[in-house]
């Protein structure tokens, strides 16, 4: 134990005196937060909208006006068929389509329910999200203004906003929790590997080897400070997501902590492995970038995996970040717990055992 403590302490001093790494650790989370957080706060107004009014009555016109006056929807197109609405959305001419059925006014006045459809292009999650929420409010207000009330309490207008192309509505809310995974994946293996390789490069390891210290004590001692760094990064992002950008944390923070530690261990193990393969710091960073790039692209951090061709989709199963993204998003956004996440936890545990086992074995070999 005292040896591990001594090594961890020494490693901490290295870290605190290494300006470049410190700046990287401090700046990266903020740069990423600004990049993705900016998207959250952009209010999206004046969404180009097509109205397919099959009723053409005073009431249907007033409804259209209500949409327009909200300033969130600009009526830019009045197609003459449902097919034409679909085409306009497909081509990106409009972002939303309001479909008013024939007999809208007649039904309402007769006390029957009328069905109103709004189709929203979900590709761009942010405006789609806004459109979802505001349209609901517009319709409710419209019903009040028109004095449409039913004795049985059922809404007179059955409003059905529907999302196309991105039914889960992957919002910036969706991106920010993912940043925890992204940053751990980008930073932790890199600083771990360089810390170990540097020791080899500068010949420090020769001196360490003639002491009675055991290889596992070296590994553990060197990793401890980086566990701290990893947790600090995770905490920074989650706290700023919550405090600055109002991303709600629905799940259990303890579960999140435990599973973040698991992913962090994978990242540390990966850095350790790279350090046993690389001869110098440059090689170490090359190896890590070689794996980081596909991790970010194929894990679903930016592009939804569901839209990938199957061989590429399959590769995602071998990427730890894939599982951690589901975990961190699931816990933060959907309030999931262990029971919902076994499908992600088990593969992550397996990868963790594999990476750690391999790298400890190689580390031993390298010392000989």
């Amino acid at each position: 134990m005292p040896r591990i403590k001594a090594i961890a302490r020494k490693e901490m001093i290295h870290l605190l005196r290494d300006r470049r790494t410190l700046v990287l650790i401090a700046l990266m989370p903020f740069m990423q937060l600004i990049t993705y957080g900016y998207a959250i706060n952009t209010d999206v107004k004046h969404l180009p909208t097509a109205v397919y009014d099959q009723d053409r009555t005073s009431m249907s016109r007033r409804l259209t006006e209500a949409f327009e006056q909200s300033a969130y929807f600009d009526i830019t197109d009045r197609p003459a068929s449902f097919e034409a609405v679909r085409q306009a959305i497909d081509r990106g001419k409009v972002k939303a389509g309001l479909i008013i059925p024939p007999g809208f006014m007649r039904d309402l006045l007769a006390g029957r329910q009328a069905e109103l459809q709004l189709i929203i292009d979900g590709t761009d999650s942010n405006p789609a999200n806004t459109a979802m929420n505001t349209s609901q409010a517009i319709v409710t207000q419209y019903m009040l203004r028109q004095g449409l009330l039913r004795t049985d309490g059922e809404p007179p207008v059955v409003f059905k906003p529907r999302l196309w192309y991105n039914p889960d509505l992957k919002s910036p809310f969706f991106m920010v929790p993912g940043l925890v995974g992204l940053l751990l994946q980008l930073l932790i293996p890199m600083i771990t590997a360089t810390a170990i390789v540097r020791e080899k490069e500068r010949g420090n390891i020769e001196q360490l080897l003639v002491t009675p210290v055991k290889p596992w004590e070296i590994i553990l001692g060197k990793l401890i400070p980086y566990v701290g760094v990893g947790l600090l990064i995770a905490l920074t992002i989650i706290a700023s997501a919550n405090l600055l950008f109002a991303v709600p944390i629905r799940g259990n923070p303890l579960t999140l902590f435990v599973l973040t530690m698991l992913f962090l261990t994978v990242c540390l193990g990966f850095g350790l492995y790279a350090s046993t393969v690389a001869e110098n710091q440059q090689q170490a960073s090359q190896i890590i970038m070689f794996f980081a790039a596909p991790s970010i692209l194929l894990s679903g951090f930016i592009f939804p995996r569901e839209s990938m061709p199957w061989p590429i989709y399959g590769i995602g199963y071998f990427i730890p970040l894939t599982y951690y993204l589901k975990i961190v998003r699931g816990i933060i956004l959907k309030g999931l717990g262990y029971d919902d996440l076994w499908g992600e936890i088990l593969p992550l545990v397996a990868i963790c055992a594999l990476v750690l086992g391999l790298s400890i074995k190689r580390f031993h070999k390298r010392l000989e």
Partner: protein
Amino acid sequence: MSVPAIEVRELTRRFGRQTAVDRVSFRLDYGEIFGFLGPNGAGKSTTIRMLCGILAPSSGSATVAGHDVGKDPERIKLSIGYVSQKFSLYSDLTVQENLEFYGSVYLLEGERLRGRIEQVYALTGLGEYRTRLAGVLSGGWKQRLALANAILHEPRVLFLDEPTAGVDPLSRRALWELFYKLSASGVALLVTTHYMEEAERCNQLAFISGGRILRMGSPQELKSRLAGRLLEVECRPLLKASAAFERMVGLTGLTAYGTTLHLNVQDEREARTRIAEIARSEGIELTGVRTIEPSLEDVFAVIENEEEARGPHAAD
């Protein structure tokens, strides 16, 4: 006979096809300084690394502080100190932090650790640099730090691989004073060096080349083998003379020293006659021929000459 600090029997290490250390045997007692001399690539560092337990021997055996190198390398680590050829402490840690770190690795703690650090400060004079980063120290102070670090846990055997390389003459002398103090306190020291005046200070010397020990003995013993067979020849022009004497019958070594030549010969009287003859026939101006006491440098010049004459080792 007392228990030796180091006993090496036929120790061999191969790297692929190359034999870096070839059946090396020697013995070192506590309180003695053993010097390793030899050109670069001779196998000095490799031998030391095997004795420190960080490199496995290919064959042969050795005990260090009573523990077998092959079977018990971990036990050895507690009884030895090692100053490696390349400065291998942490440049971004201060002198004090380096010592604290290595002390803790040897499980020194609290008062005992602080006490030992003060002791090595007193011994080496490093105290005034305690808050200095190790990386900014001069070569001499770096080596003092490396030594301080190696003796913190009071090892009984010290391995010093070129501890004075790149160190100014003043610091070199100071370091050797420290080596003496340590050996006087019963520590066994194995030192590699390139400097003859340092070799002169060892109790035992081994001249190693191509992985093999070519000669071994105390400086006195090594020199006595040449006694009465070394001639200092004062002559001009030096270059021409050296070329002419080189082919002389009965010559075993020739080295130039400033304005004189040192000739190692098989028979002194015969040689004096031959030298005079050659000088006359070649038109060399001879101003003096004296028998002199050999220095270690002469000894090694002879050893190298003999080795060259014998040809590359690969043959046997």
